[in-house]
């Protein structure tokens, strides 16, 4: 068997490949599901119903997708320039903390002031957290995979210190949670009496802006060139360090926004379980989307639907909701294979 590169994958193949990858992933997930003793058709129907079957289910899925879009975009921006940011989780918490600091009771103003200042502060906090490992990389050659990953734990401990110390809510009866943000800072609901909030709009606008940045501007050209071939970028006169710093600000800022959106749209305060790993899931989202900013929206909604649907299926059928992790992992694997099939023609010699 040998692989021969295709000159350019056709448009049909480009859409058929990811679609069939998901079908194959669901088929493979049926094996453990059958072992768990669940009737397959009913189980998948329950899953579909729980994720997309009603207005409520849909809003839950989109609520779950919102932070995933933002962290997925953060990873996409960084990976495009081959800045291996594994620290979106920590940057998310940095953004969440900054949001609480800005929007707790010290001052209050109209939402038109509160929400933008919270977003700016959250993005800045996320950006600063990624700038530290980025500067260590560009100045001293320290591997950013390690530093961004480890900073996640540093950040979690810092959050723990803050929510049990200076930022702890005096009304929380000793629970480690921060003061809530003021009402003026809360993101408005998009659909009445659901959890879906304006953070989704922020995420969608961010996706469009990042797509334009990457594909239409000189800074995007620099990011892509540095990512695809740093030697050629340097030869052409680009400043690798500066491009990395710019990328870090965009990427860390987006992850910080995810934290702002969760605090201001869903929780209202910071706890240590604010994110069930949205930062790490952002990597999966970005890889599934093959580092396309607009594709991130689709893959984030898909992953959110799998999680929400599997939760609901778990409750209905009595199977473990860990099946969601399994389906997501299988989708990533089948998507990688699909990517290979789209780029290469397989010949049996």
């Amino acid at each position, binding site marked *: 068997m040998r692989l*021969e590169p295709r*000159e350019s994958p056709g448009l049909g193949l480009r859409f058929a490949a990811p679609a069939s990858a998901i079908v194959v992933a669901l088929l493979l997930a049926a094996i453990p599901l059958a072992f768990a003793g669940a009737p397959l058709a009913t189980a998948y129907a329950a899953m579909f119903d729980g994720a997309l079957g009603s207005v409520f289910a849909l809003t839950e899925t989109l609520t779950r997708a919102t932070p995933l879009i933002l962290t997925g975009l953060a990873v996409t921006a960084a990976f495009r320039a081959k800045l291996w940011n594994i620290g979106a989780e920590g940057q998310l918490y940095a953004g969440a903390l900054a949001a609480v600091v800005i929007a707790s009771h010290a001052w209050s103003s109209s939402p038109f002031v509160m929400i933008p200042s919270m977003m700016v502060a959250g993005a800045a906090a996320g950006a600063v957290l990624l700038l530290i490992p980025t500067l260590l990389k560009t100045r001293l050659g320290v591997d950013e995979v390690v530093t961004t990953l480890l900073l996640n734990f540093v950040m979690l401990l810092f959050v723990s210190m803050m929510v049990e110390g200076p930022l702890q809510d005096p009304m929380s009866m000793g629970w480690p949670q921060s003061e809530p943000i003021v009402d003026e800072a809360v993101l408005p609901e998009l659909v009445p009496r659901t959890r879906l909030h304006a953070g989704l709009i922020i995420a969608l606008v961010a996706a469009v802006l990042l797509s334009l940045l990457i594909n239409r501007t000189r800074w995007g*050209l620099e990011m*892509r060139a540095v990512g695809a*071939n740093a030697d*050629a*970028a340097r*030869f052409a*006169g680009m400043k690798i360090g500066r491009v990395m710093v710019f990328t870090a600000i965009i990427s860390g800022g987006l992850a910080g926004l995810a934290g702002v959106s969760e605090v201001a749209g869903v929780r209202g305060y910071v706890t240590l379980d604010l994110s069930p790993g949205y930062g790490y899931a952002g990597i999966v989202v970005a890889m599934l989307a093959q580092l396309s900013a607009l594709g991130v929206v689709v893959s984030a909604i898909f992953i959110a639907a799998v999680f929400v649907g599997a939760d609901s299926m778990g409750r209905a059928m009595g199977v473990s909701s860990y099946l969601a992790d399994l389906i997501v992992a299988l989708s990533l694997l089948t998507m990688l294979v699909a990517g290979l099939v789209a780029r290469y023609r397989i010949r049996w*010699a």
Partner: protein
Amino acid sequence: MSKVAAAPVLRLTGITKRFGPLVANDRVDLSLGRGEVLALLGENGAGKSTLMSILFGHYTADEGTVEVADGAGSLKELRHGSPAAALEAGVGMVHQHFTLADNLSVLDNITLGTEGLWRAFQGRAAARRRLKTLMDDSGLAVPLERPVGTLSVGEQQRTEILKALYRGVRILVLDEPTAVLTPQEVNQLFDTLRRLTQQGLSIIFISHKLDEVTAISDRVAILRAGKLVGERETKAVDRGELAELMVGRPVELHGRDPQPRGVEVARLAKVSVPGPRGGMDLKSADLALFEREIVGIAGVSGNGQGALAALLSGLAQPSGGSFSLFGNTVTRFDAGAFVAGGVGRIPEDRHRDGTVGDMTVWENAILETYRDGANQRAGWMRIGAARDHAKGLIDAFDVRCPGPDAPIRLLSGGNMQKLIIGRVLENRPRLIVANQPTRGLDIGAVAFVQDRLLEAKRAGAAILLISEDLDELFQIADRLAVIHSGHLSEARPAEDLTKRQVGLMMAGEGQGAHAA
């Protein structure tokens, strides 16, 4: 034909190999006589490597047979797609990029894979004795105990040949063996090959250099676009005919064309450039470049050419001496500023430094000028204008490609190089730094690149041409300097020098080369 008729040791019949729609080999018939040197001549992509890969079992032919003579001299069909069978039958190959382990000694490299897994190191004394005999018989001298990484390129190549001989090959395939050698090493290699053929070895010599082919071979087979377009006795053919057979049309290489030289464009005075691992890659170099003049730098790869090119391209900072460009002392070592100031750079490695493979042709066409007002406004790329500009380059420089939106990795090396040359020349640079601009190109593309450089020179540019190809340097350079282990000799008029002199200086001997 006499040697073939006497005792053929190899016969390829009707070899056809397709890769998708591409026919890499189209019904190729070839035979090789005992003790014969057959040159396989062809441009890049003509199908030479594919044919040899089939012979060696790396590829399976779609049609046709490979027959190799056994010890008794009768032809036996070789099993398809099996390198082990080829080795067994006595076919050996020395690849252009050596397949040696740098950290192992010559002896270990040669015996690697010939010993049983559980009996390693047992037959060393015998192996050493056998190798000594082989070295005496063939004239190939290599220090057996030295790690391969410490050897010169020539010695590494001799190690590769010894490795093949140690395995008892009767047919040796050499893929572009002279690309990495100095002229003296080439002569030494040819002496060795003649000696080996007298002892009965048959050799296939792959090349696209006409003078080497005529110097070493008994017979030439010419491949073009996958087809065998001719076979000639070397004695009875001239280089013009070979070139025409290879390219398919007459090729004319243009010569020096001296011009009255203009004002000084760049001057190095005692400039040193540090290397990546400490020490100086360029040691106290003096050089002056003038308008309407090509200064050639000869040297074996890795002797400081990279540092010299990087310095003049704005990619490296000197640690000593003074460097002036267009009359001003350079204080900002910034590639972007150099380009904007009028320096055109043709990089040594077009895949690594010249292009971003996954980006489109148009993006690569503006890679050095994307900040200009013509290509962006307030940060927004003017994609329409940039694509039109790329289309203009594609037409003007005859870049064969699917279009400006195709990823540049799909282009052949020659077309990639044409795009890079176009990108450089359309800025009308006053200084052009061309590092190995024709390396790996076929003769048609070589002529194209050389003509464009000569044109730029007539139009007033100063050109620094770094090349490993002495023929090229003597053909188009006005003055020549030699670089050896970081020392740059004085640049002298090319007509005052001979290839022999320059070759000795490249090896670090003779006048002009400073003591290291």
